[in-house]
């Protein structure tokens, strides 16, 4: 760490992390309440950020309120560190937080900001996962009034949401929700877990790491604390299922690049129209490639 940041002077950290200190304290107070009330959408005064909402400003404000010069930040978008959105966010944090390191390796990161995925490698205690959330309220599909939704959340009343879910299942004979599957936290609040696939939900359940979710437009922060139940809504006769990536013969598909058959896969269509699969988590794919084919592995 740069010894310059050890200066016990107020000036030493002036402007670190873009947000002013009042904004950071407000976000920090909201984070602690969000952890104390698992799954509750804690309101905060979202600030204007120098990028359009929808580019992860909710997640970014969380990251900026958390980050210090001793952190190693990883930013993921669609599972990859090198997508345009991830690169832009990472550059913004690097620019405004001098001294902080970035990394593409899940295991090396202290702080991970992500959209669409939770890394394949289980997170450890004291790693922090920040998820960007476009639509924070799982009840919005059954109730348009925010005041009534707040009461339903407070009472833990999700009867209408469950009915809606069940109707879908009866109609299509299958869980049709691919992303944002409603998930009950610590036996009370049901959250929209952000656009992660169903595949990632078991990783939230009693995880060692803290997960914070931020919605910039809706000005809400919520949390899944470590070692906390996160249960996707389900029914006795229709259990919750994750994507299983089986081919017509019932075999588990594997990543065409690294060979892993225990990861979330993206479908690729080749020039000849042939389908293949590849890990969506690019760091995991690199890691598996290095383990399985040390000769072919890209230098990482």
């Amino acid at each position, binding site marked *: 760490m740069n010894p310059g940041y050890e200066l016990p002077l107020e000036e030493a950290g002036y402007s670190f992390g873009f947000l002013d200190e009042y904004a950071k304290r407000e976000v920090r*107070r909201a984070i602690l309440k969000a952890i104390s009330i698992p799954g509750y959408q804690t309101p905060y005064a979202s600030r204007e950020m120098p990028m359009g909402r929808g580019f992860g400003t909710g997640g970014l404000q969380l990251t900026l309120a958390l980050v210090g010069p001793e952190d190693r930040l990883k930013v993921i978008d669609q599972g990859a560190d090198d997508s345009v959105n991830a690169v832009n966010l990472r550059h913004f944090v690097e620019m405004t937080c001098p001294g902080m390191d970035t990394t593409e390796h899940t295991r090396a990161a202290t702080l991970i900001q992500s959209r669409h995925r939770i890394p394949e490698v289980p997170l450890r205690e004291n790693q922090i996962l920040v998820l960007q959330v476009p639509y924070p309220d799982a009840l919005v599909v059954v109730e348009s009034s925010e005041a009534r939704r707040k009461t339903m959340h407070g009472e833990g009343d999700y009867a209408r949401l469950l009915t809606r879910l069940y109707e879908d299942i009866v109609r299509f004979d299958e869980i049709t929700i691919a992303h944002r599957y409603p998930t009950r936290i610590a036996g009370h609040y049901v959250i929209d877990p952000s656009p992660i696939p169903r595949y990632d939900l078991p990783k939230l359940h009693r995880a060692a790491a803290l997960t914070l979710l931020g919605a910039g437009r809706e000005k809400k922060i919520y949390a899944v*604390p470590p070692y906390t139940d996160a249960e996707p809504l389900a029914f006795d006769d229709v259990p919750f299922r994750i994507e299983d990536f089986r081919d017509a013969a019932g075999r588990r598909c594997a990543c065409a690049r690294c060979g892993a058959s225990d990861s979330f896969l993206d479908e690729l269509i080749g020039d000849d129209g042939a389908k293949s699969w590849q890990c969506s988590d690019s760091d995991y794919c690199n890691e598996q490639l290095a383990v399985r084919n040390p000769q072919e592995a890209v230098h990482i």
Partner: protein
Amino acid sequence: MSETASLLDHQSIWGPMAQQRVFRCLLEAFSYPGRIQSASLPALLATLGDSEISLADPDELVAADDWRRLGARREAADKANFVVARGDIDPAFQPAIGTLESPEQGATILLRVRKLGRGAKLKLSGPGIQDAIKLAVGGLDPAWLERRAQWNAGFPMGVDFILVDGEQFAALPRTVSIAGEA
């Protein structure tokens, strides 16, 4: 510690870099209830408070200079966002517990105890705790635990505690169940 060093140390709790570090300790304390972290009461107040919060100090534990630096609104303990109180005497107020719709309006109580890590053992369980964890607290009137259980009986409403001795603290969010140990 020399007088100069201690003066600088005190000033530094008002600086952004120190507050970022203290906040990460707070984050860890709330994420993993019962684990003891390092920070003093003034450092916690400096990190959490400013002119946008209300603060009650019924036992006069906050120094006049810290009040001035914080700029927090003085409020009665029954209404304040944050309450600083002595843990070795009976609670003499009824803190805000929030509402069903806005449970985050429940107070955060910073409770001054004699010593963390030594004393009566509390057995904690709940979110953030893998199984159960024991936290030893010296100088905590058991009446606080009884009142806490009453205030937190109607989740999601409730109050969140930070126990703090001279240089250390531990958090007890409202979700934590506490059992005494003989």
